C-alpha cells in the first residue's frame, strides 16, 4: 500500500529517494499502467516517486544530432511535436494509436517502454529509429540500446525501484531516410494492437541502402524481421522487392494464438501486407523532403 507520494525536483533527488527506501519506492510517470498494476497487486511499494514535476524531463529537444525525449513526455505531446513529425513520423503515427486521447494525455513514451509490453505502439516505432535510453541510478548515468531493455514478454530489464530512465534519444533524420508505423486493431480507439509493424529506410538512388523492419508482438519486445532486412540491403525500390520483403518477414513472426490479439494463422496471413504497406509509407516519407 502506498504510504507516501513524493515529487522530487530533480533526477538526482529522485534516485536518492529510491536508494534511501531500498526497494520500497518506485518511479511513477504517467501511471496509466502502473496504477492498475498496483491495484492488481502485481507490484507493491510504500513510496511513489513522481517524475512529472522535474522540469528537464518535460521536453522534446534536438541535441547534438539526436532527438531527445524526456521521461514525462506524453503520447499526445509527441504526436503533435514538430520535431517528432519531422524526424520520426513512425513515432508520431504510433503515439496517435495508443489507448484514447485521455490516456495519451497522461501516459508517457518512456513508460510505454518500461512496462515491457511486447507490442507497445511507441516502443515498436522507437525500435526502428535505433533508440538509446539514458538510465540513471545512484551510481551515475548509463546508456542502453532500446532492444536490450526487454527481459522477457511483459518484463523490462529496468528496475523502477532503483533505476530511472530519464530520456530516450535517436539520431536526427538524414536526407533519403524515412520511417512509418502501422498496426492492426479491432476498432479505432481503446484497442490493443493485434499486430504492429514499423520500418525505417534509407533510400539512395532508387535502391535501399538499408532498411529496419520491426514486428510485434512476436517475442520479448519488438523483433527485427532480419531476413527481410538482409534482403532489402542494396535491393532496388520496386513493388516486387517490397512484396518479397513482406513474405520474408514471416520467417521471424512467431505469433501465438491469443483471444485478444487474434489467431496465429490470421496474423501470419496479414503480416506480409502490413510489412509492404509500412515499407511503402517509409519510402514515401524518405522521398518527401
Amino acid at each position, binding site marked *: *500500500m*502506498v*504510504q*507516501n*507520494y513524493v*515529487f522530487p525536483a530533480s533526477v538526482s533527488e529522485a534516485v536518492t529517494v529510491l536508494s534511501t527506501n531500498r526497494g520500497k519506492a518506485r518511479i*511513477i510517470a504517467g*501511471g*496509466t499502467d502502473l*496504477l*492498475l498494476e498496483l491495484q492488481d497487486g502485481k507490484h507493491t511499494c510504500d513510496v*511513489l516517486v*513522481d517524475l*512529472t514535476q522535474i522540469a528537464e524531463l518535460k521536453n522534446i529537444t534536438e541535441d547534438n544530432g539526436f532527438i531527445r525525449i524526456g521521461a514525462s513526455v506524453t503520447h*499526445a505531446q509527441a504526436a503533435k511535436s514538430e520535431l517528432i513529425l519531422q524526424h520520426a513520423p513512425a513515432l508520431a503515427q504510433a503515439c496517435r494509436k495508443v*489507448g*484514447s*486521447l*485521455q*490516456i495519451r*494525455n*497522461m501516459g508517457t513514451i518512456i513508460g510505454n517502454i518500461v512496462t515491457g509490453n511486447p507490442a507497445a505502439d511507441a516502443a515498436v516505432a522507437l525500435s526502428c529509429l535505433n533508440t538509446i535510453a539514458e538510465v540513471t541510478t545512484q551510481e551515475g548515468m548509463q546508456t542502453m540500446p532500446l532492444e536490450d531493455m526487454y527481459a522477457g514478454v511483459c518484463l523490462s530489464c529496468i528496475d523502477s525501484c532503483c533505476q530511472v530512465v530519464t530520456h530516450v534519444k535517436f539520431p536526427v533524420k538524414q536526407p533519403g531516410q524515412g520511417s512509418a508505423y502501422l498496426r492492426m486493431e479491432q476498432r*479505432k*480507439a*481503446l484497442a490493443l494492437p493485434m499486430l504492429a509493424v514499423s520500418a525505417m529506410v534509407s533510400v539512395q538512388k532508387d535502391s535501399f541502402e538499408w532498411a529496419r523492419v520491426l514486428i510485434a508482438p512476436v517475442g520479448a519486445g519488438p523483433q527485427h524481421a532480419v531476413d527481410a532486412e538482409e534482403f532489402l540491403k542494396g535491393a532496388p525500390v520496386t513493388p516486387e522487392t517490397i512484396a518479397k520483403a513482406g513474405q520474408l518477414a514471416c520467417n521471424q513472426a512467431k505469433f501465438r494464438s491469443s483471444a485478444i490479439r487474434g489467431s496465429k494463422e490470421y496474423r501470419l496471413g496479414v503480416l506480409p501486407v502490413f510489412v509492404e504497406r509500412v515499407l511503402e509509407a517509409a519510402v514515401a516519407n524518405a522521398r518527401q523532403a
Partner: protein
Amino acid sequence: MASQIISFRLNGEVLEIAVSPSEMLLDVLREKMHLTGTKRGCGKGECGACTIIFNGKAMNACLIPAMRAQGADIQTIEGVAGPDALHPLQQSFIDKGAVQCGFCTPGMIMSAKALLDKNKSPSKEEIREAVGGNICRCTGYIKIEEAVEDAAQALRANAVQGGDL
C-alpha cells in the same frame, strides 16, 4: 496512512482537501466532495465515464493520483453550466437526443468541451478523436457527433455576437 492537505482549483474555486497518498482523484471527487457527476465505469481508463479536464486536457480521473492534483486547474461536469443557462454542449446533447441512459454523458461532455475550448471549428475526425475514449452503450454515437457539431456552431455564433460563454 498519513493524509496530506492539497490545494487545487476546482470549477474556478480554489479549495483545500485532505487526501491519502494511495487515493485516486475520482474517489476524492465522488466520495469526499460528493461531486457524483463524474462517473465511475471501469475504473481502469477504458470507458471515459470519469473524464475531467485537468490543466486544460481531458483525462481519466480514475487514473490520476489525488496527490497530483496539487496546484492543478480542474473542471468537472458540475462546473460546466453557466449561472443562467446550460452550456451549449449540454443544451445540444438534449436537443439532438444524444442522451439516453445518461451514464456516459458527463464524460462525453468533458471530452467534447476539452476539444471545443481549443478548437471551435473541429472536423468530424477531430470530434471522433476527442470522444473516441468515451464508450456509450446507448446512442450509437451519431447523435453525439451531431450534438458536438451543433454546440461548436452555437459557440461560434456566440463568439461573433461578442458573448462570452
